[in-house]
């Protein structure tokens, strides 16, 4: 390298120092990141979701340090101090106390005298866990099916598309209820695979399964489009096997789509879980979720509205947060994206 300051004849000086970075090419990821950063609203809602998750994860802390009770402990005949007065947690006529500024029962109590705040946090863990796990299942199968169908086309594609049609055609709620109730009694037993009737995995599998077509179709569409592109044809011509092509050429270009769908899918899963749990076909005791809390509170819409309002609010906030952030992600990753999830 010529000594700094030396002037090679006839050519302009090479840029040095900070300036070099300014003309480096920026990866699409970095650009996406910048776009996302500019979208304050999306970021705010994304943060909201993180806050909600942290809130729920903090359940044991709150339960031990502040409320001094577990989520399933009944306090039917106990009293607490509200504004200097000793009040029954559950009045003799069965009406529980509502939210207020007291460390115990911050959000009030339910019919069994359980602490709603604590249940909300623990229930949120279940709901979010189900939402995320089911999203993993959906994504895995949707990507697999979409890749295979889109890559091989022809016969394989026809068959797989029909399979998607079949899943799509199932009356979702009915299927969920029927499976949920039928499996809850004896559990699931397919060959070596055995799952207990009240395991969380039963609703997770059902919910994950149900949404596969919603994600698989758009992914298949994208793969079909990508398939035609030169770099893919080049890779195939180079003799790369299907798996390598899928992983090294196709999949990387799908990541943005996958990320967006994954995010939106979590929201849908949580909604479906609430519906199934309300019908008694989702989360089963002793587990509780926001869905089961709504079902339990539905008997007290008049005298203890907080029992339903609180979990409904949490679901609305979480779904809202995921959707707005997901939209923001979509806009950031692909500003001209034509991808849209059918639901």
């Amino acid at each position: 390298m010529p000594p700094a300051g030396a002037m090679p004849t006839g050519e302009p000086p090479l840029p040095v120092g900070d300036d070099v970075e300014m003309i480096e090419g920026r990866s699409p990821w970095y650009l996406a990141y910048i776009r996302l950063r500019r979208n304050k609203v999306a970021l705010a809602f994304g943060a909201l979701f993180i806050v909600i998750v942290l809130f729920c994860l903090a359940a044991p802390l709150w339960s031990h340090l502040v409320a001094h009770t577990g989520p399933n402990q009944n306090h039917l005949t106990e009293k607490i101090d509200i504004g200097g007065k000793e009040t029954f947690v559950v009045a003799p006529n069965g009406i529980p106390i509502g939210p207020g500024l007291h460390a115990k029962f911050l959000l009030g109590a339910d019919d069994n005298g359980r602490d709603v705040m604590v249940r909300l946090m623990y229930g949120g863990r279940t709901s979010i866990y189900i939402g995320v796990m089911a999203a993993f299942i959906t994504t895995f199968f949707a990507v697999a099916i979409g890749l295979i169908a889109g890559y091989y086309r022809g016969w394989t594609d026809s068959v797989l598309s029909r399979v998607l049609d079949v899943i799509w055609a199932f009356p979702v709620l009915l299927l969920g209820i029927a499976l949920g109730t039928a499996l809850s009694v004896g559990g699931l037993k397919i060959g070596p695979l055995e799952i207990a009737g009240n395991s969380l995995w039963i609703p997770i599998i059902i919910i994950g399964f149900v949404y596969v077509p919603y994600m698989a179709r758009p992914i298949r569409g994208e793969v079909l489009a990508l398939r035609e592109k030169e770099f893919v044809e080049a890779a195939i011509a180079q003799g790369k096997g299907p798996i390598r092509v899928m992983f090294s050429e196709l999949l990387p270009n799908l990541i943005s789509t996958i990320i967006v769908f994954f995010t939106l899918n979590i929201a849908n899963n949580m909604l479906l879980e609430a519906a199934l749990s309300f019908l008694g076909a989702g989360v089963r005791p002793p587990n509780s979720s926001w869905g089961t809390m709504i079902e339990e509170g539905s008997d007290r819409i008049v005298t203890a509205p907080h029992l339903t309002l609180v979990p409904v609010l949490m679901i609305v906030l979480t779904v809202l947060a995921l959707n707005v952030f997901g939209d923001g992600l979509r806009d950031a990753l692909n500003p001209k994206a034509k991808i849209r999830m059918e639901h």
Partner: protein
Amino acid sequence: MRNLRKIAALAMATALAAVGLAACGDSGGGGGGKEGGEVAGTVTSFPDYLDPQLSYTLEGWEGINNVYIPLLTYQHGNGEESTKVVPGLAESMPDISPDGLTYTFTLRKGMKYSDGTPIKASDFPYAIQRLFKLDSGGAPFYEAIAGATDYADGKADSISGIQADDQTGKIVVQLEHSSGTFLNEVALMFAAPVPQSTPLDKDQTSTPPPASGTFMISNSDPPNSYTLEKNPQFKTVQDAGASDLPEAHVDKVTVTQNKNQSAQAQAIEQNQSDFMVDPPPADLLPDIQNTYSDRFRFQESINTYYFWLNNTKPPFDNVQVRQAVNYAIDPAALNRIFGGRLHPSQAILPPGMPGYEESNLYPGPDLEKAKALIAQAHPSDMDITVWTDDEPDRKRIGAYYQDVLNSLGFQTTLKIIGGDVYFTTIGNLSTPDLDTGFADWFQDYPHPNDFFGILLAGESIHPTNNQNFSQTDIPDLNKQISDLDTKQLTDPGVEDGYAALDKSFMEQAVWAPYGNEKFTTFTSDRVAFDDVLFSLVFNLDYSSFQLTD
């Protein structure tokens, strides 16, 4: 029997859309209202059956007790009056032989069913035969009839112990042992005669048999609705001298199923519906008590709520462990779940039942004492399954009970089963892990043997359709049950005998009972509220409905 409420609220409010006064004899009062018109009511769960030989729930009996009249019946009235057995289709109370084994009835003359078929004496044994052919839950009540078990087992073509003469109307029933409850059992729906054209072994809920009561079922559309209309042939029964059977005031009663109990109560508030079979939900109760107190009231009911404890295997095969449970549960806490309508009690018999005495065997709740007892007993198996059904209040009861058991150191699994199949599930002895769970029992008739004989006698343990969920089989107490059963309630010392029996069972802690639920009555303002009758056996008396002027 049990109550099939689906989305039951805590309170068992029985909406009484009672109208007018129920005729018959003594009740006097009322009479304010007009004749005719229609009332419409709702029920949360359609009756299990509308077939008199099969129906075994409050919903069913409430619907059909004015449609099918047995040889004897329960007097129409309020409270205790309603537990008196009086003649129905029979001319009078039967002649009973001195040894208590032979009952002779005489059928009234000239009566017809709603379709014009004459009512015959042989229709009575036909009805009893149906009980066995249908494998009815009520069949065990009549096994004491000579030849009944032979018939049930297929060894005979008819029941040898019943002789019926269609010419004279005489019906003679031979029992295998004397019974203090047989009269009560003859007055149950199960023994209501039906025409012999009724299929012997098929449930007739969709096509109910012709009626002998003041109402007939003019339409049956399970599980959506059924309709009662005035039976045009009821005159023949009245003319034959049945003065204890009141005539209905309204022309038509429709009962429609609505799973949304809150909507049912709101419909009555808005006068869009006239009565509800079940209680308004606890959520609306304060509102209703305040705003509609002129058409709402509480009612007594004879029932006990309890937790059964499997006496045959660890850990509850140990009496100390069972006693621990009785010390640990808190009826006052459970009362909250019942919206304050529970009368806390840790006895087997409920108040209102002869032989009831307040119990103080397990003052508490005393968790320390309970834990001490368990430590002493040192049970080998602390892993238990707790059962309950899926009605909202039952789930809450289950959640409370599970919490209590957990605090005693048990490892519990809560199993929630659909209300429709809960009792058959826990009543099927081949179901695994039957450790403890929810149960209730509403009297079939006001006699303590309805509790002891059916729920706690060793011989009442059946492999399916079992009601003795604790599988209690204590030879000493079994003997006391059968002894007392042969006597009449009015005999000296019998009531005390039952009280002592209650105490003995509770000393053995075969159950963990916690109380008796009160009902309520709630009607629209179209209905003459003060005249609505509420029977302790059949609940709402539809024949007492009357529209206000």
